[in-house]
């Protein structure tokens, strides 16, 4: 299974199939489905940012929704001011990145939970702040925009056009993000996550790389805000609510921390879970989503991305063994009995 995937030809074929599916998908789908697909792209970008700062660099951020919201507000404002789309997009990236940079310059001195607490403050303060400036944000009623209609003669419905736009931007951002987390910068992120002392001795300033990761996360957050407005065409303080941040963190881990593919899977989970839960019983969504989250992690502690590995494991390890010994085998003792925090999580194997 693994070997098969390792072959370049198989990988290429797979990529082509996925590309074709992505391109063909919206043509025959309903506007509802296209909306879901587009939302997946929107949140995949937000999750990618979160994964860079949290999954790859190990800095817990509970503030990603604040940047999503900020990007969305900027986009909505820009549309109302009738700025060109490209300008809006750039601003949606630059301003949140700048805000993220400023926050990080102070916050990156902290680590672990202290940092998490400071980032939690972003959405919590962001909500009343957004209500303070109704001219810019539309206050608590929020602000509606109506833009990105399919160009005449394209033969596309609005939702299809928006889907293509959003997915195209997301794909480009994903390629950039993927490049970033591999190679020189990615290795620096990883060592900042696992051991700052070693990072220092390699000439890597953990502080700078944390600030960098945080800034990139904010940039992706802002960009996803732009995409959000492209798809939802509406934003309000609820967009940046703290609950969204928490759900994003959960989705990131469920997809697969420090994994590009995991990020996409996480976004699918993030968007589809409420829909599926509503389908099962719309008055019991909390119960269903909580149970689903636990179930997924129970079966796949490494996230959805570890599914193939897990299957391979189960196939190979058909031989039983008592539950205890199997549980123990899942986490072999590292020779070093140092505190757990230094243990790196199961990271996606990088191709080499």
């Amino acid at each position: 299974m693994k070997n098969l995937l390792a072959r370049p030809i198989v990988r290429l074929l797979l990529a082509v199939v996925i590309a074709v599916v992505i391109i063909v998908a919206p043509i025959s789908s309903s506007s509802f489905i296209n909306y879901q697909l587009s939302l997946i792209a929107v949140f995949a970008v937000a999750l990618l940012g979160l994964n860079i700062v949290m999954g790859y660099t190990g800095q817990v951020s509970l503030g990603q929704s604040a940047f999503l919201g900020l990007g969305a507000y900027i986009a909505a404002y820009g549309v109302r001011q009738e700025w060109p789309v490209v300008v809006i997009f750039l601003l949606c990236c630059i301003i949140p990145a700048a805000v993220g940079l400023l926050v990080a310059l102070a916050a990156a001195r902290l680590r672990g939970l202290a940092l998490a607490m400071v980032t939690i403050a972003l959405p919590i303060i962001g909500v009343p702040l957004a209500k303070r400036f109704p001219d810019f944000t539309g206050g608590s009623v929020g602000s509606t925009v109506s833009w990105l209609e399919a160009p005449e003669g394209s033969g596309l419905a609005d939702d299809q056009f928006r889907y293509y736009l959003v997915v195209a931007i997301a794909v480009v951002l994903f390629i950039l993000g993927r490049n970033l987390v591999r190679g020189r910068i990615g290795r620096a992120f990883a060592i900042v996550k696992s051991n700052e002392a070693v990072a220092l001795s390699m000439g890597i300033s953990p502080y700078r790389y944390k600030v960098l990761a945080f800034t990139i996360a904010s940039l992706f957050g802002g960009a996803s805000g732009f995409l959000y407005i492209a798809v939802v065409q509406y934003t309000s303080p609820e967009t940046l609510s703290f609950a969204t941040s928490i759900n994003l963190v959960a989705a990131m881990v469920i997809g697969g921390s420090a994994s590009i593919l995991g990020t996409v899977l996480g976004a699918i989970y993030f968007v589809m879970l409420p829909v599926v839960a509503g389908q099962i019983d719309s008055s019991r969504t909390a119960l269903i989503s909580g149970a689903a989250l636990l179930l997924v992690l129970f079966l796949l502690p490494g996230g959805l991305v570890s599914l193939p590995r897990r299957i391979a494991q189960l196939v190979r390890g058909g031989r039983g063994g008592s539950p205890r010994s199997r549980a123990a085998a899942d986490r072999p003792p590292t020779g070093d009995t140092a505190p757990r925090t230094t243990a790196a999580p199961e990271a996606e194997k990088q191709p080499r």
Partner: protein
Amino acid sequence: MSAVAAELVLRDINLRFGGIKVLQDVSMAVESGRIFGLVGPNGAGKTSLFNCISGHYRASSGSITIDGVETSGKSASQMTKFGLARTFQHPALQLHETVLENVLLGAHSTLAGGPVSWALRMPWTTRSEKAARTEAAELLERLGLGDVADTPAGELSPGLHKTIELVRALLSKPRLLLLDEPAAGLSHTEVEAFIASIRGVRDDFDLTIVIVEHHMGLISAVTDRVMVLDHGATLMEGTAREAQSDPRVIEAYLGQASTAEVSGEPAGA
């Protein structure tokens, strides 16, 4: 290679944590291209001294110069610029990553391009990455780790971790290398192999090396000079042979049975 082995001079280094004086007026001078041994009882302050040199600790007073340039105020992440590399007493590897990925980290400061060029995969980034990979593979091969390059570090026995750290340090193209107990956990045969390779490494890479070790056989085999620390202060400085016969050193460090051990000095000496 144009880089020339560095010269390291410490003057009157003091370090304290709370009420504890960890280092007191430690001075030492390591000539360019030499292998210098740092020994002493547990808790004498050897690792702390390394930490001061590498910028992980800030000495409360004293001066550290590398090739005459004062580095004592610099942060640890700037020290690669001065050609410094080090290994750790407790190997600090990413256990889930492969050996190759682990050592490539050492190439960080030699790779070209910042975040933007790497995100855009500019040609120079890929070129320098390729070069680093080749070099890493060669070094691993040379130190006998060629066939485990693609194994996750966590699956190797701890004895090998020291060597992986050495390769990682070498990849940063240092001129001054600090090794903290590089032979701990190695068996007798392996220590001999290590002795052979460390001299080769010094010559081929044109390095100055400071070694902390409790393995006296290794110390006397490879070092040009040693300094003995005790309770944070210099006890004596001289050749390894002088140190081993110094009654103060025997008293504070080697113990009575040490003579037996000295006799087991390996042939490489």
